[in-house]
């Protein structure tokens, strides 16, 4: 299968690779070292303790340079925004220059050591300014070697000499300064959020007490203080990024300027959603369990609200004729068209969505787990006609190989997973206090782990994503086809939905290889089911529930 990807889209990839790797390196260094401790020292060394405050400036300016690079490297003569060449020649896939990558790796190792020397403890011997200059220069050289390892030097030179990068630098710097200035609004916004939350609660509860000066709110015996970061600003920033990115990517299907209305709508919805989240937190804390409110609801409700708002905005933009350009004649008759991506993705999306929602009300044990089984099963049933092609070759080609790989993954997963005595105690208590109720829950848990989860996740990550990364018309891609890039990205995405990211990524890669080796999705499902079944049996038999619950 020859990927039919327009040239301009291909041009994203080297820059994306550079940005992603730089971000990973930045996070690794940021997580390992903390400049904060230097603040207790005076003079120049003390000043270095504030270097972290400028890290966001670097990220924002880098993002700005990347976003504006198109105007520099491929000036568009056409006046139409995002006019893509209809039949652009397909360039060769980009390949990193491995020798430069090796040099970059050595430089990063040196940068890591130097960072540790300067920021890892107290002041080093010598001048703080000289160490800082050396550190900055080495950091910049690291970024340069990574860039030229992926991007043509001529393109980098063209970009560097264009005037656009000065504009990008200015936009990045102004945005960073403006972003810091928005801190001024944190407290007023928190106060407004407090007012909205109190207004939402008062019709239903008589004992709502709010203190705008202290930014505190109480309902019954449950009290919260609205921290600045709970004002809703972060959600508004995130939704801005997502909505603008969505508008940019889908611009050819949207009507301008009205599509820009989506932005204020999304921002207001994010703020209101945050107020609803805090109101929900108050209700859960006051009427159910304060610990449940703090530990489960508080940290998950924000994500649920954010996903709901973002997906609603996208759905309205894609479906409503107010925002969407008139569809082509081919798409006018909805009954005659289908969206194969949705059929592969929806069961898994329901699985993830229901897990997020029930997780808001779960501590050690998710008592609403049956909902995580019923929803996806219903989706699979309703979409069954879309799987006709899959069902024609439903039998695994090499079940023994699939089960062997599944068992190996299951054993490795179990042995590397640390025990959580609290969960073991909670399950033991639930088993002792209500054996029948626990039995029903356990039945759903087994069906979920061994049947529903493998089918839904393999449909999404191997059936769809692995093949979609090879070609956007993924149904035309054989199950035997995969590129290293596709295996890497689909496994990384699979890791995202597992708490143990590295183990999840390795498991995902193993299932992908099973699919490619056998040419059938069903073999990957069998391998995944085998892993989950083994873990379930082992946990039930040993009583080490925390490996599985």
């Amino acid at each position, binding site marked *: 299968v020859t990927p039919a990807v327009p040239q301009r889209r291909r041009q994203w990839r080297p820059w994306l690779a550079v940005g992603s790797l730089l971000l990973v390196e930045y996070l690794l260094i940021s997580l390992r070292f903390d400049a904060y401790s230097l603040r207790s020292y005076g003079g120049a060394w003390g000043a270095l303790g504030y270097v972290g405050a400028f*890290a966001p400036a670097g990220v924002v300016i880098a993002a700005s340079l990347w976003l504006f690079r198109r*105007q520099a490297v491929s000036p568009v003569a056409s006046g139409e925004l995002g006019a893509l060449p209809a039949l652009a020649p397909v360039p060769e896939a980009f390949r990193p220059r491995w020798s430069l990558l090796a040099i970059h790796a050595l430089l990063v190792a040196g940068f890591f050591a130097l960072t540790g020397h300067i920021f890892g403890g107290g002041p080093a011997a010598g001048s703080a300014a000289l160490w800082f200059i050396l550190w900055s220069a080495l950091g910049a050289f690291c970024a340069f070697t990574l860039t030229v390892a992926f991007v043509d030097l001529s393109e980098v030179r063209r970009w560097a000499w264009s005037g656009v990068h000065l504009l990008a630098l200015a936009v990045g710097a102004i945005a960073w300064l403006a972003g810091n200035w928005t801190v001024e609004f944190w407290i007023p916004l928190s106060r407004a959020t407090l007012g909205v939350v109190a207004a939402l609660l008062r019709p239903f509860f008589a004992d709502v007490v709010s203190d705008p000066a202290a930014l505190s709110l109480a309902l019954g015996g449950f009290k919260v203080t609205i921290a600045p970061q709970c004002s809703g600003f972060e959600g508004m920033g995130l939704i801005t990024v997502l909505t603008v990115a969505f508008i940019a990517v889908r611009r050819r299907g949207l009507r301008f300027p009205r599509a820009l209305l989506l932005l204020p709508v999304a921002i207001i919805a994010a703020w209101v959603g945050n107020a609803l989240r805090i109101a929900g937190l108050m209700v859960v804390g006051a009427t159910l369990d304060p610990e449940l409110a703090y530990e489960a609801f508080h940290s998950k409700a924000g994500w649920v609200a954010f996903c709901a708002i973002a997906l609603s905005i996208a759905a309205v933009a894609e479906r409503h004729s107010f925002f969407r350009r008139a569809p082509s004649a081919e798409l006018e008759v909805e009954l005659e068209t289908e969206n194969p991506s949705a059929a592969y993705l929806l069961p898994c999306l329901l699985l993830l969505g229901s897990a997020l929602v029930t997780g808001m009300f779960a501590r050690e044990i998710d008592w609403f787990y049956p909902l995580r089984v019923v929803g996806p099963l219903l989706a699979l049933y309703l979409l069954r006609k879309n799987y006709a092609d899959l069902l024609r070759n439903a039998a695994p080609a090499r079940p023994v190989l699939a089960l062997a790989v599944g068992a190996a993954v299951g054993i490795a997963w179990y042995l590397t997973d640390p025990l959580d005595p609290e969960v073991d105690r909670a399950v033991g208590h639930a088993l002792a206090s209500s054996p029948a109720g626990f039995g029903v829950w356990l039945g759903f848990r087994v069906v979920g782990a061994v049947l529903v989860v493998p089918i839904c996740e393999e449909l999404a990550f191997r059936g769809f994503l692995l093949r979609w990364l090879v070609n956007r018309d993924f149904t035309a891609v054989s199950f035997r086809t995969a590129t290293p890039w596709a295996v890497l990205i689909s496994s990384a995405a699979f890791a995202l939905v597992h708490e143990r990211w590295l183990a999840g990524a390795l498991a995902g890669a193993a299932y992908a290889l099973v699919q490619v080796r056998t040419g059938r999705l069903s073999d990957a499902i069998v391998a995944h089911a085998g892993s989950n079944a083994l873990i379930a049996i082992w946990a039930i038999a040993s009583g080490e529930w925390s490996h599985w619950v």
Partner: protein
Amino acid sequence: MTKALKFLIPSLLVAGLVVSPKDAQATRDTEALKENKFQAFKENKFKAFKEDKFKDIKRSRAPERIAPSAGFGDDGGFWTGQSKQVPELSSSAAGASLALLAGGLLAISGRRRRKADSR
């Protein structure tokens, strides 16, 4: 209009990035630079506490309803201690949400094609 959008869209993206969550150290450092601002904020809270605006509620709300483990002050009283610092975001929920968002957007914007049986 379209030329303006070419610059507006990247600019808005950059602006949005700035107010999005940052890593812990950077956020803390930024906050430290704004120390005076937060000092005033803390003082306001302390003032409210000193004035004990909620003394009536303090009497009517039974302190025993507020479990000490919930973090309401050392003496279990009302308004007498810092609220419990709770995790803002769950990392596992963050990963699942990102996957849900990406998958949802792909499903919503998925390519439509003619059904095989209607060709």
